[in-house]
């Protein structure tokens, strides 16, 4: 995202509002243009929002995300062919992290594939890659008897994240899971079809924060009521600024930063996701520094004064209190413990290669 202050958005067309826009405006949110969407960047303090997700229950509007419903007798075979990894091996009610690769192995997007039924899959992609995912899936569906519905416009996504997320959802009167399913019965990377009042809702135990949590997909028209109920049940609205520092601490890649069209899965540590396993010349690593000055996306990584890599994401970690960064470095500088430096606007800040993630939640549930 942005690495310098640009008080006036450079966008020349109006970003699309979320179905929850009026709710965010009423809550006094600050907004950012994210992948063509007007989304809340923070409601108050992004540090406080980050802390809420680490200790309580944060609530995110992620309605900008792209969703596709894939159905039909060939649904699994089609996704096996279209995406990296085997969608056909996903059990009903479970999910898998996957990649959409170009013919040359470059990453077009990273996505999550949920299996709703034998012949029904819910595929969630990044907002910024909506068009390329839609086009690539459409192109690859030839020869397969499948339906491919773009649900992005229709659906809203509310994510409840944090150690108290389950508790918040359990206090939601309108949320009903079909017998014998329970919230506790949804495993990490699991999904259940439920109802919220009269509205069907997908309840997925997934997230992008490093905490336990749920992602709720439902028709956009019902989102404001769900949001209000979640807030009443104790979830605290959080913006995309906190989401970015949370996912960075959790060592999770962000498309456009750690993953790009020019990135090979193996370089990003995602070789297990795809079958392409040739070693890369550069490797994604975690870097930890001291002090308060953070390396930011695009800053050079140095070894003995020579440039051997580049930062893809960086911030002063709100949880750890030290500067952290993810960076691509030469393979021979990627071993944990290697002493490197970050070129922070002309000053070399010592940094050490550390194991990702920077932050892991305590094992619970």
């Amino acid at each position, binding site marked *: 995202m942005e690495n310098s202050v640009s008080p006036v958005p450079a966008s020349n067309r109006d970003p699309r509002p979320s179905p929850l826009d009026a709710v965010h405006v009423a809550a006094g949110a600050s907004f950012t243009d994210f992948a063509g969407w007007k989304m809340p960047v923070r409601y108050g303090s992004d540090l406080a929002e980050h802390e809420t997700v680490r200790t309580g229950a944060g609530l995110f509007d992620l309605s900008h995300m792209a969703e596709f419903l894939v159905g039909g007798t060939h649904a699994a075979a089609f996704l096996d062919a279209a995406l990296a990894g085997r969608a056909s091996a996903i059990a009903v009610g479970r999910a898998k992290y996957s990649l959409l690769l170009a013919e040359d192995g470059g990453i077009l997007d990273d996505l999550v594939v949920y299996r709703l039924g034998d012949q029904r899959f819910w595929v969630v992609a990044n907002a910024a890659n909506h068009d390329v995912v839609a086009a690539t899936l459409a192109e690859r569906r030839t020869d397969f008897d499948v339906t491919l519905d773009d649900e992005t416009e229709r659906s809203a996504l509310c994510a409840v994240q944090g150690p108290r997320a389950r508790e918040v959802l359990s206090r939601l009167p309108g949320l009903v899971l079909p017998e014998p399913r329970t919230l506790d019965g949804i495993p990490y990377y699991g999904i259940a079809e439920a109802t919220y009042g009269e509205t069907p809702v997908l309840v997925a135990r997934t997230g992008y924060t490093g905490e336990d949590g749920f992602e709720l997909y439902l028709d956009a028209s019902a989102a404001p009521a769900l949001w209000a109920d979640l807030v009443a049940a104790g979830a605290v609205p959080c913006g995309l600024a906190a989401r970015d520092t949370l996912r960075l601490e959790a060592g999770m890649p962000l498309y456009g930063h750690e993953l790009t069209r020019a990135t090979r899965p193996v370089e990003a540590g995602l070789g297990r996701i795809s079958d392409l396993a040739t070693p890369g010349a550069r490797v994604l690593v975690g870097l930890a520094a001291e002090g*308060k*000055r953070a390396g930011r996306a695009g800053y050079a990584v140095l070894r003995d004064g020579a440039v051997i890599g580049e930062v893809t994401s960086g911030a002063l970690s709100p949880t750890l209190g030290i500067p952290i960064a993810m960076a691509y470095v030469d393979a021979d500088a990627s071993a944990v413990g290697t002493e490197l430096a970050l070129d922070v606007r002309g000053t070399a800040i010592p940094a050490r290669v550390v194991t990702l993630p920077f932050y892991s939640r305590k094992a619970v549930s």
Partner: protein
Amino acid sequence: MTEVHYTKDHEWIAVDGDIATVGITAYAAEKLGDVVYVDLPALGATVAAGRVVGEIESTKSVGELFAPVDGEVVERNEAVVADPAMVNGDPMGGAWLIKVRFTELPALLTAAEYEELTQG
């Protein structure tokens, strides 16, 4: 009586005699988000209007501190360096950043002109 001016770089300048007190505006603080690091020029440093003399870093981004006038840094707000979150709490008051002794004031924005700029 102190007069307050503004710049296009989202700074405010309170002028009292030949001393300009400089800070960032509430608008800039709000856009930055939580400030976690402030770097200020050294005491006694000579600064030139329009030049970068420091940094204000938030969790999300890096803002530059520009010298709004030619002059000499006669005071730094060490409290803000120690507790950068002050910039979010009281950007237009207690979280002033530096005081500069100047000889001549360049063309600056009035409060009304600055307000117009931030709403454009």
